[in-house]
């Protein structure tokens, strides 16, 4: 087995907030079938807060644990607070990730940011640094680190 922290194993064995939101306000999908991790995040927003968050993930243990942790970190937070969630923060909350799995934490944060961007654009809300920029291109070789 890969050397995962206890926290990663907990989230992997019983991931929180798994699922889809049929009438989601924002959806963010990131994926890279070559290195094999794909995530779709769904958010429900009320009064600028992430009222509910769910996701579906295809990937390794780290990818699943990262998705679960990201959902925990942003649930109930304002959009601005949620946007401060970085891959490093996710990895830290998971008590670290193996070096060759760090890209999984990028994917989690990316998918969430994408869902927020999708919500903002749908509702014509300007979020500086997010909606005024082109969607960042996915790093096709993120897995080859």
């Amino acid at each position, binding site marked *: *087995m*890969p050397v995962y922290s206890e926290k990663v194993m907990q989230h*992997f*064995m019983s*991931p929180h907030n*798994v*699922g*889809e939101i049929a009438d989601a306000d924002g959806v963010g*999908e990131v*994926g890279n*079938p*070559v*290195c*094999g*991790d*794909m*995530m*779709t995040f769904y958010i429900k927003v009320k009064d600028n807060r992430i009222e509910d968050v769910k996701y*579906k*993930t*295809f*990937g*390794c*243990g*780290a*990818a*699943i644990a990262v998705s679960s942790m990201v959902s925990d970190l942003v649930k109930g937070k304002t959009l601005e607070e949620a946007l401060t969630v970085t891959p490093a923060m996710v990895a830290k909350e998971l008590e670290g990730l193996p070096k*060759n799995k760090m890209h999984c934490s990028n994917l989690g944060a990316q998918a969430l940011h994408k869902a927020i961007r999708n919500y903002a654009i749908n509702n014509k809300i300007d979020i500086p640094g997010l909606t005024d920029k082109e969607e960042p291109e996915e790093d096709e070789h993120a*897995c*080859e*680190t």
Partner: protein
Amino acid sequence: MDNVAASPLLPEVREAMLPYLGEIFGNPQSLHDWGDGAREAVEGAREQVAALIGGAPEEVTFTSSGTEANNMAIKGIARARADRGKHIVVSAIEHFSVLNSTRTLQKEGFEVSLAPVDSNGTVDPAEVAGLVRPDTVLVSVMHASGEVGTVQPIAEIAARLPKDGPLFHTDAVASAGNIAVNVKELGLHALSLAGNQFNGPRGSAALWVRRGVRILPLLDGGIQEGGRRPGTEDVPAIAGLGKAAEIARRDLDGRMKKLSGLRDMLIDGVLSKVEHSSLTGHPVNRLPGYASFCLRFIEGEAILMLLNSHGIAAASGSACTSRALKASHVLLAMGINHELAQGSMLFTLGPDNNEEDVNYVLEKLPQVVDRLRQMSPLYSKYLKEQKG
């Protein structure tokens, strides 16, 4: 059910090794009684290994691993024949110890042609023969794949190679000790095998080279192993390899029958109980203990972790399970796409496994697969497409 990674040492093998970890600690090269005991063990093992593959004892060189034996065969034979030509043919699904050896040779001016495989992982003998040129000095095609279990038509390939043309090596690490291997019937010049693939010790392996074939050593040193493989002999490992070879030969038929039966039970069970599952490798020409699959919409490492939580050990060729994060080159060469390769699984059965184990896997695997599919965006997309 991961015997390809590590097979348990047979108690008889362990017993055969113990004296050489204890009282018989001598160096086989020494000219005294302590050396004699060690030398007898090494030469006895050489006879046992030769008998397993139908070769002569003096044609067997002990090495530290299958990887070393493959390196020695590819580099040692190609380099010794460089004056005749600098072209090599190998299959696309060789083990990295063969593929990367050919890469090293490319830096020395050799050209390498890769023989493709079909969707079952089988090399076409006619294609191999078609790649052979007047300057081809070596052809190497593995006897059986350690990833999908497909057994290659080695004798047919040998029959198609031009006489006085290239020499023919096979990596029999996955097959030797598990199916019948006879160097004469297969028409070989060199063959690699490893003890840990048939319940011998790790660190025990051998390269068989037909009498008269020149091969350059990888290491410079003294006269051990006829100068082909210098370095003080690992007597306990060699003694263990010899014993494992003797047992493998003795028990081959019964073991093949038992493992093929369990394998077919596992294959039939997985294919019928797990939706969207497919067998990888050849449906008939496959190693007795090998059951390998692709399970759609989910990823191998996650499957392995959940199986492990149920006490089941298996393997996968998914990108996420490899340290290099690359999907198995064997599966990709068979035309399996990256997404499907992510859900690849390999169960390798050994003499310790029984029907109860197979039934347990058949109970747990569908649950694990279902659980991961419930959270897979690929699966929900598929379901929506089916509905729409």
